C-alpha cells in the first residue's frame, strides 16, 4: 500500500484514504460497520457470503466491499434501504436451512451468525419448507461437526490450506448439497483446531469441551501458551476454579498469533485440573521409603535443613540448582538468585534440550518477531521442523511465501513439510548442518562442503546467489542441530551478510515456552549443564534443587544418577521419573494458576496471568523459592508479588530495562526485549572449529527421504499431554472409530484398552 492519499466519499462524507486500501477496511475504520462472514484478514478473498454489499456510484450492481480497492473520487453508500434489504436477504438465505439449534449449540453466546442476525437481519424468517438434513458427527477426536449449521464461508478450508498447509478439510459436493468434510469422513490432520476457532457458527466445535459450559458463564483470562516457544496469546475460560477451555477467538484476545493455536495450545489444558496433580508437599523420610504427605512448613523446614547440611559437608558447589524453560521468568530469576547469591554455587542450569548461550553471546543483530517473519522477503531455514515444533512459526513462514511472495530456502536432512513452499530445498546428510553454516559463512570451502552435505556445487551457488540478491528482510531460522561454534557464526550473520539493501534478522527455534527467558534470566551461564550434573551425581554434585523434571533424553543412560544424590528436591505438577527419586516433592502451580511472564522465540516478553487459584496446595514456583530462601535466613521479599520480581528483573537484566507489568498489559502491542548486539568480530576460531568437525563427516551415506507424519512431534505423549485423553488416541494413530455419529446415547470415549495400548506405542 502506498502513502499516496486519495479522496473517497462514504455516505456523503469525504475522507482521505491511502491509495490501494480495501474498501471494507476503510469503511469500518471510518466508523461505518459492514457485516461480513467470508472476509478474513490475510486469507484468500472469497466474496461468497455477499454480506458486505455496498452501492458504488457508476457501478450497475451492488459490489462486495471486500473485493473493492479504493480509487480516487469513489462515491460509496453503505446505508439505506437498498443495502439494508440486501443484508437482510442474505441473512434470511443463510438462516433458511440453518437449524434452530441455539439451545443445544456450544457456539451460542459467541456466535457470529447470532450476532449478525440481531444486528443486520430482518424480524421475520419466511422459510417454512423442510430444512436440508445432514447427521451430526465427529470429524476427529477434537472436532465435532454439524453440517446443517454451515454457511459455507470456507474460513475453515482456507485456514487449513493457507495457515497449516494441510488441506485436510475441504468442501465436497455442489450447490445446496455442499458440505465441509474429507474423503472417508475422518480428519487425519494435525488437529490444530483452527477450523473450530474461525468458524462463525456452530458447525465445527471443540469435541473435547462439548456441552460443558456456556461462554457467558466463563471468566476469560488472557495468558501465554505453556508449550512451545511461539508464545501464542490465548484466552483461558474458567468457571469455579476449573479451566474449561482455551481459545484464541478475537473477541477475547488479540495477540500476535491472531486466532491461531496448535493442538497442544488449544487442547492440551486438561492437565491443569487433573486429579493426578500433586496435592500436598511430600517428604521421603528415608531412602527407599515412600513419599509421605507433609505440611508446607514441615517440608520447607526439611529442605532448608538438608541444604544447610549438604553445603556444610560438601561445599556450596555440590548443590545444583536447576530451573526450567517451562516456568515463568520470575520463577527462573528467583532460582538464579537463590543459586548465585544465596547458595553461592557455580552449578546452576535449566533443563532445556539445547543451550542458546553461544548464540546470545555472539548476537550481532536483532531477533525477528513473528510479524517480521510474515513480511520477510527471504527466509532461510536451517534445520528444525517448525511445523511440528513451533507451529505458529511454521504458519508465518508458509503465509510469507504464499501471501507475501517471500522466497524460502530450506536446509534440512529431513524433507519436512515446509519444502512445499520452498524455492530451494537443500537436502543434506543427517548431522551435517554445521557444514551448511560453514558454506554460508565462507564460500572458499564450497566444494568440500558440497561433498559433506551430499549436494551439488550448483545448489550452494544457488543459495549464495539468493542471499546476495536478497532485498528487504532476510530472516535466518535455525534449530537445535547446530554446534556452539555454528551458533556463534549464525549469530554474527547480521553483521557480515547484512547490507544497505538487506537487513538480516535471526530467529532461533528453541523448544519451550520460556527457553529464551530461562537464558535471559542467566540460568544458562552456570558451570555444569543438566546432563553434566547428572553425570556428576554423587561426586561433585551431592544435592539438586530442581523446578520441573529432567527430560527423558537427559536421563537416558543415566537412569540411576538421581539415586546417587544425597538430596533431591523437586517442584512439580505431577509425579515423574524425577520425583520418583525425590526426597522432597513440592506441588507447584501451573501456568494457569500464576502471574508472570514468558519470553518467546521472537524476544517478546508476554504476560502469564492467574486464571484460577492454585489447585490443591500448590504454590507458584517463585513463591516456593522465596519461602525456602526465607527459611534459610534470606528475605528475598516474602511479600514479593510476581510484578515486584519483574521490577527487579527490569533493574538487573539490561535486555528487560524499563519494563513493568502495566506496559505489558495490552497483548496486541507486545514488547520485544532488547538483547543487545555484539559488533562484528573475527570468527576465524569458530570457523576453524567447524571445519575440523566437518572434515570428519562422511562423504557417502544415505539421506532421509520420507517426510515424517503429521503429528509425529505434536502428538507425543509427555507429562502434560499424557493427561489429555484424546492425545492418546492421536498418538495411537488416530484410528477411525466404528461410528462417528453424535447422539445423546453415544459419544466417542477413550476406552481403557486403547489408552493402555497407546501408552506402549513409541520409544
Amino acid at each position, binding site marked *: 500500500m502506498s502513502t499516496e492519499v486519495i479522496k473517497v466519499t462514504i455516505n456523503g462524507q469525504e475522507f482521505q484514504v491511502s491509495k490501494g486500501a480495501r474498501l471494507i477496511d476503510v469503511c469500518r475504520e471510518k466508523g461505518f460497520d459492514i457485516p461480513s462472514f467470508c472476509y478474513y484478514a490475510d486469507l484468500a*478473498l472469497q466474496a461468497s457470503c455477499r454480506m458486505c454489499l455496498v452501492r458504488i456510484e457508476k457501478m450497475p450492481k*451492488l459490489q462486495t466491499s471486500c473485493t473493492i480497492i479504493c480509487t480516487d473520487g469513489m462515491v460509496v453508500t453503505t446505508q439505506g434501504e437498498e443495502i439494508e434489504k440486501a443484508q437482510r436477504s442474505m441473512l434470511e438465505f443463510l438462516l433458511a436451512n440453518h437449524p434452530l439449534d441455539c439451545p443445544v449449540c456450544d457456539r451460542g453466546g459467541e456466535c457470529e451468525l447470532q450476532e449478525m442476525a440481531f444486528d443486520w437481519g430482518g424480524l421475520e424468517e419466511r422459510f417454512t419448507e423442510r430444512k436440508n438434513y445432514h447427521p451430526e458427527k465427529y470429524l476427529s477426536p477434537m472436532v465435532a461437526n454439524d453440517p446443517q449449521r454451515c454457511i*459455507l464461508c470456507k474460513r475453515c478450508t482456507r485456514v487449513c490450506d493457507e495457515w497449516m498447509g494441510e488441506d485436510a478439510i475441504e468442501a465436497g459436493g*455442489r*450447490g*445446496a448439497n455442499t458440505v465441509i468434510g474429507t474423503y472417508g469422513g475422518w480428519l487425519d490432520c494435525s488437529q490444530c483446531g483452527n477450523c473450530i476457532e474461525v468458524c462463525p457458527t456452530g458447525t465445527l466445535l471443540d469435541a473435547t469441551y462439548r456441552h460443558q459450559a456456556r461462554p457467558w458463564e466463563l471468566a476469560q483470562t488472557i495468558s501465554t501458551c505453556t508449550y512451545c516457544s511461539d508464545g501464542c496469546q490465548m484466552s483461558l475460560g474458567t468457571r469455579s476454579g476449573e479451566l474449561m477451555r482455551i481459545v484464541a477467538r478475537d473477541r477475547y484476545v488479540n495477540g500476535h498469533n491472531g486466532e491461531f493455536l496448535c493442538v497442544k495450545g488449544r487442547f492440551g489444558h486438561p492437565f491443569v485440573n487433573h486429579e493426578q496433580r500433586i496435592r500436598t508437599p511430600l517428604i521421603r523420610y528415608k531412602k527407599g521409603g515412600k513419599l509421605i504427605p507433609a505440611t508446607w512448613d514441615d517440608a520447607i523446614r526439611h529442605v532448608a535443613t538438608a541444604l544447610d547440611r549438604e553445603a556444610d559437608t560438601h561445599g556450596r558447589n555440590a548443590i545444583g540448582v536447576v530451573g526450567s524453560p517451562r516456568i515463568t521468568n520470575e520463577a527462573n530469576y528467583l532460582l538464579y538468585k537463590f543459586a548465585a547469591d544465596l547458595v553461592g554455587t557455580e552449578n546452576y542450569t535449566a533443563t532445556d534440550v539445547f543451550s542458546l548461550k553461544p548464540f546470545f553471546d555472539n548476537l550481532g543483530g536483532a531477533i525477528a518477531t513473528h510479524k517480521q517473519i510474515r513480511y520477510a522477503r527471504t527466509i532461510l531455514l536451517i534445520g528444525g521442523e517448525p511445523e511440528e515444533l513451533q507451529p505458529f512459526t511454521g504458519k508465518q513462514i508458509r503465509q510469507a511465501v504464499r501471501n507475501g511472495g517471500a522466497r524460502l530456502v530450506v536446509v534440512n536432512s529431513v524433507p519436512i513439510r515446509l519444502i512445499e513452499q520452498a524455492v530451494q530445498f537443500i537436502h543434506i546428510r543427517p548431522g551435517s548442518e554445521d557444514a551448511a553454516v560453514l558454506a554460508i559463512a565462507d564460500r572458499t570451502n564450497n566444494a568440500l562442503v558440497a561433498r559433506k552435505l551430499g549436494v551439488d556445487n550448483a545448489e550452494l551457488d544457488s543459495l549464495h546467489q539468493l542471499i546476495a540478491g536478497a532485498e528487504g528482510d532476510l530472516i535466518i531460522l535455525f534449530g537445535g542441530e547446530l554446534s556452539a561454534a555454528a551458533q556463534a557464526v549464525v549469530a554474527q550473520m547480521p553483521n557480515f551478510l547484512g547490507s544497505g539493501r538487506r537487513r538480516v534478522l535471526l530467529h532461533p527455534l528453541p523448544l519451550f515456552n520460556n527457553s529464551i527467558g530461562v537464558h535471559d534470566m542467566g540460568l544458562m551461564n552456570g558451570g555444569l549443564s543438566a546432563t553434566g550434573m547428572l553425570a556428576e551425581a554423587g561426586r561433585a554434585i551431592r544435592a539438586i534443587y530442581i523446578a520441573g523434571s529432567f527430560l527423558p533424553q537427559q536421563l537416558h543412560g543415566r537412569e540411576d544418577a538421581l539415586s546417587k544424590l544425597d538430596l533431591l528436591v523437586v517442584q512439580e505438577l505431577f509425579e515423574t521419573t524425577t520425583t520418583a527419586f525425590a526426597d522432597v516433592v513440592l506441588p507447584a502451580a501451573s501456568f494457569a494458576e500464576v502471574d508472570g511472564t514468558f519470553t518467546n522465540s521472537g524476544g517478546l516478553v508476554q504476560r502469564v496471568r492467574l486464571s484460577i487459584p492454585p489447585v490443591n496446595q500448590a504454590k507458584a514456583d517463585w513463591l516456593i523459592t522465596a519461602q525456602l530462601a526465607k527459611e534459610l535466613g534470606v528475605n528475598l521479599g516474602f511479600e514479593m508479588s510476581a510484578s515486584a520480581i519483574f521490577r527487579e528483573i527490569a533493574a538487573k537484566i539490561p535486555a528487560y530495562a524499563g519494563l513493568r507489568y502495566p506496559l505489558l498489559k495490552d497483548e496486541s502491542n507486545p514488547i520485544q526485549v532488547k538483547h543487545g548486539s555484539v559488533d562484528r568480530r573475527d570468527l576465524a576460531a569458530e570457523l576453524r572449529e567447524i571445519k575440523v568437525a566437518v572434515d570428519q563427516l562422511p562423504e557417502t551415506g544415505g539421506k532421509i527421504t520420507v517426510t515424517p507424519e503429521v503429528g509425529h512431534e505434536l502428538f507425543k505423549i509427555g507429562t502434560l499431554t499424557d493427561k489429555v485423553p484424546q492425545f492418546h488416541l492421536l498418538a495411537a494413530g488416530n484410528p477411525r472409530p466404528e461410528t462417528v455419529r453424535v447422539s445423546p446415547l453415544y459419544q466417542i470415549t477413550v476406552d481403557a484398552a486403547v489408552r493402555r495400548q497407546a501408552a506402549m506405542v513409541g520409544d
Partner: protein
Amino acid sequence: MFIGAIGCEPLQLRRIHLENSRSLTVYRQNGGYEAIQQVLSSRSPDDVINEVKKSALRGRGGAGFPTGMKWSFVPKDSPKPKYVVCNADESEPGTFKDRYLMERDPHMLIEGILIAAYALGAKINYIYTRGEYKYLIDIMDQALNEARTAGYLGDRILGSNFSCEIHTHTGAGAYICGEETALLSSLEGMRGHPKMKPPFPAVSGLYACPTVVNNVETLTAVPDIMKMGGEAYQKLGTEKSGGTKLWSVSGHVNRPGVYELPMGYDDMEKFIFEDCQGISNGKKLKAVIPGGSSVYIMRADQITGRDVRMDYEGLVAAGSMVGSGGFIVMDETVDVFESTKNLTEFYKHESCGWCTPCREGTDWLVKVFKRISNGGGRPEDAQLMLDLCDNIEGKSFCPLGDAAAWPIQSAIKRFPEDFKKHLAVNGNS
C-alpha cells in the same frame, strides 16, 4: 431433425449435409483452410483483430460480448503465454447447436481457433467440451490428428513462423462450467467455481495468463470473416449484430432443428409459423423461451403481430434476449408453472454453491415450487418467489443467480394465471 439456413445462404451450416463432411479432404474441397493460409501469409495479428471488430461478431455462447473487443483486451506485451479456450460446454437448456458444428464440421472449429491463436499469440489451446459429449471429443481428436498430419497444427504451420497446438479437454457434468471463469477453474483441475472479475480472463485467465474464452459458434465464424472481410460479414446481419446466428429450435413445433438465420431476421412470428412449420398437433402457441432457459419467457401475444426482429436489440425490445439461441416453443398444453418449476430445479441442481443467494435461494425456490405442486400453495407464494428472485438477482457472485431468477420473474409476471390457479385457495390471490 432439420439442420439448415433460412433467410440467407448457409454460412456456418454450408458443409453440414455433405458426405464425409467431417473429413479434412471434404473440408478443403469446400473452402476449408483457405482463411488460415491467407492469414498466415499476408495478415498481421492486429489485422485479424481489426477484421473481427469490423464484423460486429458477438459472443454466441449467450453473453453477446463483442468478440473483437474481447480479443483486443489481451495485453500484447505480456511475457506470459496466451491461451485460446473454446467453450464447448454447451449446457444451456434448449441449446444444441455447437454439437452439430463439432459433429459435422470439426475442421471449421479448428481453423477458427487457429486464426484466433494467431491473432493473440497463443501456442497451446483447448477445446473444453462437456463430458456428456464424449463422442464429439473423439470426433474432434480425430480431426485434430488429421490437421496435425496435414501440417495445420504443430510447428511452423504452413511454413510460417506460427506454431500452435490444440487439445480437447473433457468436462464432467456441470452447467456452471459454461461460465468462462468457472470453465477456467475446471480446466485448471479445480472445482468449477467462477472466479472474481476483475481481473478479466483476457488479462489473467488460465493459469493466471492472458486467455480468451469463446463459444464454438463464435470461433467457427472467424474463418469466413477473414475470407469475406469483416464488413461483408457484418452486412449479413445488422449494424450492431453482424453475421448469422444458429437457433436451436425444440418443443412443440412441427420441424425442430438447428436453423441458421441472418441476424435481424424478420421476424419471429414468421420463423415459428412458417420456417418451423407451426405448432405441432394443431395446437396454439402459448409461450416461447427464445434464447436458452436463462432468458425471459415470452407470451404468444408478444410475438404474433409484433414484428420481433431476431437479433440482440430486437429481442431486448421485445422483452427477452438472444442468449444462446435455444428456442423452446410451448403450446397451450404447457402449464407455465410446471415449466418454470422444471427450470428452477435445473438451476438448483447446477448451482455451484459458492455464494449465499444462488445456493440457498435456488434451493428455497425449488422447495416452494414442490410444496405448491403438492397442493400446499398459498396466495402469498407468488410474492414470496418474486421477492426471493429479487434478492438473488444482481447480488450473486456470477450470472447464474440472475439466470435462475429471470425465468421465474418473467413467468410470474407474464403468466399470472398459470400460477394463480395453483395458489388460490378460494379464489383469492
